């Protein structure tokens, strides 16, 4: 057991630092440091810069353009990316549909879709959830009826994140209504420009427009866009869900937020003293800090286990649960530091590039919105209750 980095690993860290200092677009880092929301174009530029360096696809096999990094390299990269507050990758293409395509797709599909995902030429979104099916994903109803060499898709998907930007959507659809509900599900890739698709924005409690309801009205999808076998979509999706859980600990990002909150609390006064020096407040900070130290090690232990063999086990549900609890606790803390200035709402501050006058200290802007928004993290990606069911069944064998 030891924590030290090898000489190669230290060299890698230098290379990552150099990249962010010299190659990655400076203006994007500046916007982030000012707390501005990046536009669609900005996000694409950011991802393309990483792709150009070969760093866009951390999880992919090397043959398809993956980095081939060890667990330690990933850890180093995440730390450095958090240090510059790098815009997070939009996960739907790179982390979600791509693993399904390279694992279960045919050669033609791989050739057709993977390069554009790798280079962020195509924006993907996810069509899993439906208004009736939340945590009970498998009860989905969107129908895909085979008609010659097409599927005709009708139904509604919800919580389609950033569908307003998307070129393609990957969907779970029902191709068979008889039998066990998991067995009639297929995995379909659909061009968002297809006639019959409409996207309705859903405004969330933080005031933002991040998610949508996406309607399919007899949308014709070429049968060649089916991944793997008809009726096996559930199996593919489950593999993907485990992949989704590994990145979700968000340790490096949470460390960064924590340190920002500490700086903010050092400036906010309470009874003539910086809030950071208040024993009660400090205790609250320390509790989160310690939980985060623990989670970082749990994450590393999981990564190490993964690098020894295959996919992360059900233990990785811990990462989802603890990771989101910490993220939520941090937004709550930021709001606490803001005091009365958590209350003002500046709708424009949620728009890309907003650079207006803050009300109160700039660190306070949007803290309440962020807090409201982050409540989603214990709901999506398999609610934390579902994660506990998974651990109960798969780990504790209850």
């Amino acid at each position: 057991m030891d924590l030290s980095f090898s000489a190669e690993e230290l060299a890698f860290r230098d290379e990552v630092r150099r990249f962010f200092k010299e190659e990655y677009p400076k203006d994007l880092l500046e916007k982030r440091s000012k707390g501005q929301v990046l536009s669609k174009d900005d996000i694409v530029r950011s991802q393309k810069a990483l792709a150009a360096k070969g760093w866009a696809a951390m999880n992919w096999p090397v043959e398809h353009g993956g980095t081939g990094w060890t667990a330690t390299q990933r850890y180093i990269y995440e730390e450095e990316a958090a240090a510059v507050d790098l815009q997070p990758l939009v996960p739907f293409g790179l982390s979600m549909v791509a693993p399904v395509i390279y694992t279960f797709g045919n050669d033609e599909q791989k050739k057709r879709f993977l390069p554009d995902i790798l280079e962020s030429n195509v924006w993907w979104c996810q069509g899993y959830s439906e208004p009736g099916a939340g945590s009970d994903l498998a009860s989905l109803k969107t129908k895909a009826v085979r008609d010659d060499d097409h599927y005709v898709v009708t139904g509604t998907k919800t919580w389609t994140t950033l569908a307003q930007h998307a070129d393609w959507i990957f969907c779970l659809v029902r191709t068979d209504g008889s039998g066990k509900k998991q067995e009639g599900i297929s995995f379909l890739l659909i061009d968002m420009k297809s006639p019959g698709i409409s996207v309705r924005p859903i405004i969330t409690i933080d005031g933002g427009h991040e998610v949508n309801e996406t309607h399919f009205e007899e949308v014709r999808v070429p049968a060649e866009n089916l991944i793997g076998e008809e009726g096996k979509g559930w199996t593919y999706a489950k593999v993907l869900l485990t992949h989704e859980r590994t990145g979700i600990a968000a340790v490096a990002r949470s460390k960064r937020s924590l340190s920002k909150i500490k700086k903010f609390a050092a400036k906010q006064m309470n009874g003539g003293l910086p809030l950071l020096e208040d024993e009660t407040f400090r205790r609250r900070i320390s509790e989160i800090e310690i939980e985060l130290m623990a989670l970082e090690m749990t994450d590393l232990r999981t990564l190490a286990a993964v690098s020894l063999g295959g996919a992360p086990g059900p233990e990785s549900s811990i990462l989802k649960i603890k990771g989101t609890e910490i993220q939520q606790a941090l937004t709550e803390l930021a709001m606490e530091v803001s005091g009365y200035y958590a209350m003002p709402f500046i709708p424009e501050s949620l728009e890309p590039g907003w650079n207006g006058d803050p009300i109160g200290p700039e660190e306070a802007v949007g803290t309440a919105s962020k807090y409201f928004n982050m409540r989603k993290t214990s709901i999506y990606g398999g609610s934390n209750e579902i994660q506990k069911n998974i651990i109960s069944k798969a780990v504790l064998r209850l």
Partner: protein
Amino acid sequence: MDFSLSEEQILLQDSVVRFVQDEYEFEKRRKIISSEDGFSRDNWKTFAELGWLAMPFPEEMGGIDGTPVETMVLMESIGKGLIVEPYLATVVLAGGLIKEAGSPAQQEELIGGIVDGSTMMAFAYAEAQGRYNLADLVTTASQQGDGWVLKGSKCVVLGGPSADKLVVSARTSGDQMDSNGISLFIVDANASGVSRRNYTTVDGNQASDITFNNVSLANSDLLGAEGNALPIIEKIIDEATAAVCAEAVGAMEVTYQASVEYAKTREQFGVAIGQFQVLQHRMVEMFMETEQTKSLLYLAIMKLAEGADDAAKTVSALKAKVGTAGRFVGQQAIQIHGGMGMTDEMSVGHYFKRLTMINTLFGSVDHHMKRFAQLSD
């Protein structure tokens, strides 16, 4: 000991419930919030007609002599309806201060205006550096000739945008944190040197940051004795805190009940999610937290009503509990509603947001826990 409401109090309760049913359906509320004023002046007139604006004032000031119990009854229903008209700012805060400290002339003019609905007011007390400490003031009023000159800034003044008149706390002597040397002034909101930055708060209410740039005040604008305002401010903020806690209890009740109803109908895995034991117990905890908070509310209100020595301590206990229990109930309501709870369309998120902001208003949990400990010695 008696925990029941009087007949008149029950009638009052009924009248607010009816108003919410008739005039505050959720889509109507949404329109009110997105209107120019951010609240409805018609509703304000109705409040005047129903006597709500006269509630806490003595008969000789044109009021109807309500006690903190009446305010609680009203505010609990305001919380159930998520009413955004600035009752707290005008009646409880500004009205309370004038009732407590005003000269007969001030009372006649201003409380008269409040009662008939013609004057809206706000209390500007908080400052950026002061956090929740009422005595931590850098806004000053210095004597000049026959009057005063007011200089400084106040933050997040509830009801600021619609206020015709402001009550402003300022330091007339002493150092930044001194208990002595604090005075109150009545300031015309449109006076020269007063500038407001108005905004909506995240829970759909209206507030302002207000700057006073050498605002000239007459001696008759002083509210109460010079330099001795802190105890009065503390008393009225305590009353307002209890009132806003009553609002929170109303909101908590709706929130946990909405979650229970949702859980009964929302199906997952072939059964209503209310069948899952983990969610059942969580809703039981939401119910218990609401009941325990309600108990503290009754306690604090009765202590305020009898002017008990430990009223302030009880209010801090209540406010701290509202903070933690309100957060728990709100967060879990969203969790139980799942994705739907995250949408602006459903009302539950709006209750959650209001409960979150009530935690901040008049001091967060930590602030009141410390005050409770201090007042317990």
